[in-house]
């Protein structure tokens, strides 16, 4: 690569190919960019198109600098930062077209292609779904084809694509090998920029009116559960999330969590074994079915019976669990915690508190008081809706006595206030309820739209007992899921509506496929790797074994490739091999055939030097010539005869 070919401006076709490749790798980002930046990027791409068409020279450097500053300013204005994941990606999406417009020769083109590679990695930060993988595959193909075009401008587009796809196909086995065997390292190497997981959705550690109904609108998958046997009936599918017992009259909040390495309950009753695959949500809870025992070590058991991961769940995690729904928990609850579960802020929700005190006066035992509270809720004629009216300061009061329309969070919140007023320790539990069984792969898919809030009441001798006040007013929510509980006028994501069987089938198929993808491709981490290697029968799963296996596999691949690429001449057929054997026999007598000699000429020369063999060799030469060059040779009949002749030929 001396200066001469690389400094020359690119031919027009190569310019177009480069522009197309850059556009392809930029497209997925454009929709996520702030409007002005997206407009600037699109403008730069259009400018480059014009530049290539007109073969215009590169714009002056000060103009490029100005544009770069403008881009950075836009980025700062709209995203309030120049660093971090989102802003960094936005800057990269600007840098690429800037470099494209500024570029002139082959070296600039190579720089653009490298930026494209980088953009593809950036794209994985946003999504790693199957379609994204397909897009990136196309992008990689385009990058290789453009590189080939840069190297050989006379190559047609089709030939360049063919070169690129052949290279990709050859490289694929080694890539798979590396993917499976390259030692995986878990966890971040350095601290991530703060905004890295801002976009994750999921339950928070507080609850106020509206926080769950927002989640409901998202059809995103929260987690999947794969049961070893039959899954529990819908009524028992309570997936436990944060437990909220701090109440300031409006907002429910989680208490600082104490966790232990072992559960503080003794499991009993029915057992359900399953594997949970939790999507990243940037919080530690693992949303297990009540009440879980994990079969692996790196989980923590909260004192509020939540299952937690030691670190926030920032990538999809898998946990193998056994849950015992009938377990009694909290039989010997800490009195401080119970006292806390009775506390109500002074003067908040006076009407509900008064109602609770009335119930307490009528019912003597805690059981009677609990039943009274449940009956009170049922008799209040409450309606379950996704669009409840806005509530003021005394949320429980207004919900129970005035608006009477609410969502699960209103039900749970009002019930806990009521129960606390009757003197029963109670708290709000948030989590997910239900889930949909995918008939294709048998996994239970739980979405954000299954988010739910319910209540827990502590009774002496029975411990914490689950009470779902929503069930009393909208039993369909618990048995049939959100789509059946809501009036048809309420807005629900299209795909969640269950009335179209075709759509439902399509959705199931797609989700089964994505689940396989998630489990085996995206979720392939250090532990999965160890699991797989053990299954493959590798003696150990340490780094040394993996590197050895990798080396062996790579050597095999290399050998295969060398064999495929080995420069080889014309393949000889059986006839030629026989003839060469005869020639070799003569060569040993110093009568090697000269390259220009025809069989007849060779036979004549041999006849002069070895008169005794003349007849034998002439027959061999004539047979060979007639088989090789004669019309309609009788290979099947004559080849064995020739073989015989040559075998007997001893010069």
């Amino acid at each position: 690569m001396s200066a001469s070919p690389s400094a020359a401006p690119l031919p027009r076709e190569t310019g177009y190919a480069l522009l197309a490749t850059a556009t392809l790798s930029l497209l997925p980002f454009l929709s996520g960019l702030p409007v002005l930046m997206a407009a600037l990027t699109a403008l730069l791409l259009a400018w480059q198109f014009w530049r290539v068409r007109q073969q215009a020279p590169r714009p002056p450097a000060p103009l490029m600098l100005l544009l770069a500053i403008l881009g950075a300013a836009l980025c700062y204005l709209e995203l309030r930062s120049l660093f971090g994941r989102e802003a960094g990606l936005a800057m990269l999406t600007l840098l690429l077209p800037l470099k494209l417009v500024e570029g002139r020769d082959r070296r600039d083109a190579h720089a653009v292609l490298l930026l494209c590679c980088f953009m593809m990695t950036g794209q994985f930060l946003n999504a790693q779904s199957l379609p994204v993988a397909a897009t990136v595959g196309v992008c990689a193909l385009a990058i290789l084809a453009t590189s080939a075009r840069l190297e050989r401008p006379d190559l047609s587009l089709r030939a360049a694509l063919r070169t690129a796809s052949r290279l990709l196909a050859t490289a694929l086995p080694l890539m798979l090998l590396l993917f499976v065997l390259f030692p995986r390292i878990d966890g971040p190497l350095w601290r991530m920029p703060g905004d890295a997981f801002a976009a994750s959705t999921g339950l928070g550690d507080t609850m106020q009116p509206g926080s769950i109904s927002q989640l409901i609108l998202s059809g995103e998958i929260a987690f999947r559960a794969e049961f070893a046997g039959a899954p529990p009936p819908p009524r028992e599918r309570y997936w436990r999330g944060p437990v909220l017992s701090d109440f300031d009259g409006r907002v429910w909040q989680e208490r600082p969590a104490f966790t232990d390495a072992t559960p503080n309950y003794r499991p009993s009753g029915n057992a359900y074994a399953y594997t949970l695959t939790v999507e990243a949500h940037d919080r530690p809870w693992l949303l297990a079915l009540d009440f879980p025992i994990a079969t692996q070590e790196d989980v923590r058991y909260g004192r509020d019976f939540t299952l937690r991961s030691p670190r926030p769940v920032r990538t999809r995690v898998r946990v193998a669990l056994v849950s015992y729904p009938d377990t009694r928990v909290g039989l010997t609850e800490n009195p401080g915690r119970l006292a806390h579960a009775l506390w109500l802020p002074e003067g908040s929700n006076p009407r509900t508190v008064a109602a609770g005190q009335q119930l307490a006066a009528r019912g003597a035992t805690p059981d009677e008081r609990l039943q009274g509270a449940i009956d009170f809720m049922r008799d209040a004629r409450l309606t379950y809706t996704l669009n409840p009216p806005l509530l003021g300061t005394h949320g429980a009061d207004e919900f129970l006595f005035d608006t009477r329309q609410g969502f699960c969070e209103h039900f749970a919140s009002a019930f806990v206030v009521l129960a606390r007023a009757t003197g029963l320790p109670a708290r709000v539990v948030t989590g997910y309820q239900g889930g949909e069984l995918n008939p294709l792969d048998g996994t239970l898919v739980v979405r954000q739209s299954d988010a739910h809030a319910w209540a827990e009441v502590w009774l002496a001798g029975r411990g914490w007992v689950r009470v779902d006040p929503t069930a009393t007013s909208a039993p369909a929510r618990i048995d049939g899921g959100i789509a059946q509980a809501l009036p048809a006028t309420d807005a629900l994501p299209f795909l969640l509506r269950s009335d179209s069987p075709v759509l439902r089938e399509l959705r199931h198929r797609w989700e089964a496929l994505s689940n396989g993808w998630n489990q085996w491709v995206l979720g392939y981490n250090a532990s999965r790797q160890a699991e797989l290697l053990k299954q493959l029968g590798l003696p150990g799963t340490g780094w040394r074994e993996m590197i050895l296996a990798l080396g062996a596999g790579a050597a095999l691949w290399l050998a295969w490739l060398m064999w495929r690429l080995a420069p080889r001449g014309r393949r000889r057929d059986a006839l030629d091999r026989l003839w060469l054997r005869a020639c070799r026999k003569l060569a040993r007598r110093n009568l090697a055939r000269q390259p220009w000699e025809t069989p007849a000429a060779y036979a004549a020369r041999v006849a002069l030097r070895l008169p005794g063999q003349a007849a034998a060799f002439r027959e061999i030469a004539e047979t060979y010539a007639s088989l090789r060059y004669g019309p309609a040779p009788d290979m099947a009949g004559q080849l064995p005869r020739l073989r015989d002749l040559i075998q007997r030929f001893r010069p």
Partner: protein
Amino acid sequence: MSTARPRWRARLRAWALRRHTPEAQPIRLRQRRVYVLPTRAGVALLVTLVTMLLASINYNLSLGYALVFLLGSVFVTHILHTWRTLVGLRLECARTGEAFVGGRAAWLLRVFNDATHERAGLRVRDAEGALLAQTHLAGAAHAELRIELTAPRRGLQNPGPLTVESTQPLGWIRAWSYLAPDAPQPVYPAPHGARALPSAVIASTEAHGSTHTALRGQGDDFAGLRTGQATDSPRHIAWKQYAQGKGLLTKTWASPATSDCVLDWRALPPALPLEERLSQLCAWVLSARRAGLRTTLILPDGTSGPGEDAAHHEACLLRLALYGHGGRP
């Protein structure tokens, strides 16, 4: 790149060619003399891949790993592809044309692809890394490349060391090999000198500037017929004989101008320096050849001629080229 880091390149080249300079022909590029290293674009790609791998580890991007591994595997495949573009290539080099000091010396480099696969993007560079020629070879094809180098000194000049390279198919990897083919091109003295050719008859011929004196000079006598050649002017073809079915013949004339012309070293002033003296003699030999004169060249180390054919004139030029060199460059 060759221009950027000439020193280690030159050292590597000297090492690579340590045993055989100049090499016997044909030259076959065997595995051991083909070197492979990433180009600047390739190094940049490797750096990018490492960065991408770190990002993938940090953010646990499974597909990020996959992409890095894919491009890395393509890189390895690329090495093999580039390497085999050169390995097994057969080259033959032969001098062509005439070279004079200060002018250009030319060779024909024949490149043979004996394999069935394509060898694309072959480039030939000189010792300084300047591009001399490039070609693409299909399977089992060959090409003829013309290579021109400056001829700085009188004597025999070999076209080396040359570099044959390829960065196919993606330009990330460069495979190259060094050649020093044994194809000596004699470099004749630069023809200049104002002295007139030492032959009175020639002077008048020169004045006419006729280029085919052997065929038709002035005041010529018809000398006979010879077999026609494709380059003969149609005016000299013996059409009458052709019509008689005697085949294509060309008329020739004997000219009194083809008389002896003696180019004598001693005829030049003794004060004239060696190279200028040789230049003058060279200029004379060229004019004599142009005029088709019967020439005798007398040098202190011997006499050539008399002779008048092309081979004789070339032998004279060769003597001038090698004068004082003992034969080898």
